[in-house]
């Protein structure tokens, strides 16, 4: 009878969680390596085209980004027409590109200036007229190395 109620010995041992922090740290380091900090807040929505012959962008400090896409306000729903250009943190017009490039170039170190690249992150439905205008502006401000951002097919 006494044995029957003697249940204290059947206690389930506590789960050993001492390796849990290590596990989570591993996941943390994985994310720290594969991602990079978001530096600008995107105000336009864009979907980059897909390609097969892509190359990775090197020297992050020498890269200037130009975003072209639909404005985040849902009122713009005219296909392909009036895409908006975002430079740094604000929506801009084509004429702002020159001064923007000059400003960014001035803040770079001399060796970065030499390998300065402009990365164009444009939506796949952008009309080429707009892209050509941007390219002409870049030409005029002697930012001749460009990079059409795309994703792997």
């Amino acid at each position, binding site marked *: 009878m006494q044995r029957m109620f003697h249940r204290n010995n059947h206690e389930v041992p506590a789960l050993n969680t001492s390796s849990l922090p290590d596990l989570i740290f591993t996941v*943390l380091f994985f*994310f720290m390596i594969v991602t990079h900090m978001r530096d600008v807040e995107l105000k336009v929505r864009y979907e980059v085209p897909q390609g097969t012959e892509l*190359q990775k962008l090197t020297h992050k400090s020498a890269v200037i980004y130009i975003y072209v896409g639909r404005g985040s306000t849902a009122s713009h729903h005219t296909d392909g027409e009036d895409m908006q250009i975002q430079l740094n943190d604000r929506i801009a017009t084509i004429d702002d590109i020159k001064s923007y490039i000059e400003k960014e170039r001035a803040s770079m170190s001399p060796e970065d200036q030499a390998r300065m690249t402009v990365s164009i992150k444009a939506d796949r439905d952008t009309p080429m007229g707009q892209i050509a205008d941007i390219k002409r502006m870049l030409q005029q401000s002697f930012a001749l190395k460009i990079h059409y951002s795309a994703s792997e097919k």
Partner: protein
Amino acid sequence: MFRRPKKRMPGLNTTSTADISFMLLIFFLVTSSMDNDKGLPRQLPPPQDETHEQELMVKERNVLELRLDAADQLTIGGEPSSVDELTQRVMEFVANAKNDPSLPEKSTRDVNFFGRIQVSDRHVISIQVDRHTTYNAYFNMQNAIVAAYGRLRNQLALQHFGHSYAECSPDERDAVNIVYPQRISEAAPEIIDN
């Protein structure tokens, strides 16, 4: 006298380490972005050359004319075509393996590693784009052209060095690039009459 009382260090309580690292993890998930910086690198011509280049006389056999109209239709030298065919056409055009008189001229030059070799340095791929062409169509065309050059260079590297273009040393790459230079001319987009 020699019997010490057994002192047991209590284990460090690490239950909250998991919570702390979870918080770090979530912080990084929120502040970082996964978007990869891949793309197609291109070089723009300097501004004053734009008008000059158009005045340059180029022999007809040396030009491959590519046009994209407002409906994203690609025409190669006047005939409607598709991006899938473009890579092959550009490869034939640039390489001109049989020295066809209707395909571009080549010149013979001394190139490192190769000695005297025929170099396809006269060809011009002329791209004309309508203002209403989508960026996607333009990008696919550029991608196909780069793919064509990439394959030609790779073929040459495999043939001559026995390894692919990607495995070449910078000097070897320069030599291959001299044999197959990228000569692409882009006119400012214009309205092409339909």
